[in-house]
């Protein structure tokens, strides 16, 4: 099985790796680049724990091949905080206790960040629909939704 040389930008850093063409972007992030923040909950696009953005579009990294990331920009949960400074969404998740085991959290944060970039003032319904592809077995979702709404409000004030 011949491996393919892939060059991509991950959270602004250029990275290179050799991928078996069957490996997913999620496998490559975790096993070749050592970024284990993105999780595999299902591997079939259902749970969203592997959410990343690819050239700015929210995707499941378990449904993208590593070789498809060649020449593209990938943003993962590891790029969300600014050094030690948490992103407002991350802070609000802690404040609202919007996580228990935390397995779904990186994917939900990445998805929620993309939502607020697309729509800074979402209704609760819009948040719920946007995050319908992110499953959480622990929280019952309510605290997640509240944390996202609260972070959105904070971000809007900062922008104003």
């Amino acid at each position: 099985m011949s491996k393919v040389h892939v060059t991509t930008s991950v959270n602004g850093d250029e990275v290179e790796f050799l991928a078996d063409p069957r490996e997913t972007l999620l496998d490559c992030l975790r096993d070749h680049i050592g970024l284990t923040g993105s999780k595999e909950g299902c591997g079939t696009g259902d749970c969203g724990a592997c959410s990343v953005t690819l050239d700015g579009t929210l995707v499941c990294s378990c449904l993208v091949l590593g070789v498809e990331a060649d020449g593209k920009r990938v943003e993962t949960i590891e790029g969300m905080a600014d050094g030690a400074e948490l992103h407002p969404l991350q802070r609000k998740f802690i404040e609202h206790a919007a996580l228990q085991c935390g397995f779904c959290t990186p994917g939900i944060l990445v998805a929620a960040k993309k939502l607020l970039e697309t729509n800074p003032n979402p209704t609760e319904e819009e948040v719920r629909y946007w995050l319908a592809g992110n499953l959480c077995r622990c929280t019952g979702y309510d605290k997640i939704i509240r944390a996202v709404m609260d972070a959105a409000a904070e971000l809007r004030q900062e922008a104003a």
Partner: protein
Amino acid sequence: MRYHTPTTFEDAAQLAAQAKGLTRFLAGGTDVLVQLRAGMVQPDDLIDLKKIAGVSEITRTDDGGWRIGVAVPGIALGAHEGLCADWPGVVEGMELVGSTQIQGRATLTGNLCNGSPAADSVPGLVAAGASVEITGPGGTRTLPVEDVPVSPGKTALKAGELISAILLPPRGENAGDAYLRFIPRTEMDIAVVGSAVSLRLDGDTVTEARVALGAVAPTVKLVPEAADAIIGTTLDEPALEALAKVASAACSPIDDKRGTVAFRTEVAGVLTKRAALIAKARAKGDTA
């Protein structure tokens, strides 16, 4: 598995024609990767189409219709004002596919070629009278969308052939379309029944119509009898009843835990009535 990135459809067709083992084309990968990972389909050759020029574009054709590239994801359809204004039913069918994440990848062409009888974007395309442009080793041909799926998971494409674009006809005046599906929850589920209607009005009278059903037969199907039931009517109560009856009669669904034969058959009639009324409202200028 060999991974190919051809830059023209001719090269992609050539690669597919010469491949000895199992071949798959890669658009958004939301079916291909799931099947690959489940061990259901392990291609020897995977031909990624996303490096071919123009595959991510939606363009107006000379006749006023639309040409949709084979790698355009759902999210780009919904963001395209001109397409949404002309064919809201086609766009809403695709937008029902999966989650935000799936929308970032999944394409109309992949949804069609995967060959699921429950594919949500296909009834809307069939009702719209869409066709596909096919490139093969011997050149190109076009085929109506309803002739692409032949049985669950099987298409009319021959070895070496692939779809190079989806073509929507010009919408014209006083026309509208709509797609509705029934699922047991509000998101992330497979259609138990899907129904699409496209029609044109003269005043309040339907002058042209096409009706397509999903998930109630081995393939998505065009139902000409349903169109005949409403052409020449104003979609008054008797016409809607007749429409529901023929739509139900066209069903030969499977029976499973998600929907019995009786349920799917009845719901096909109900959804078709509702879709016809939405299409009519849109034909009269309703933009919802």
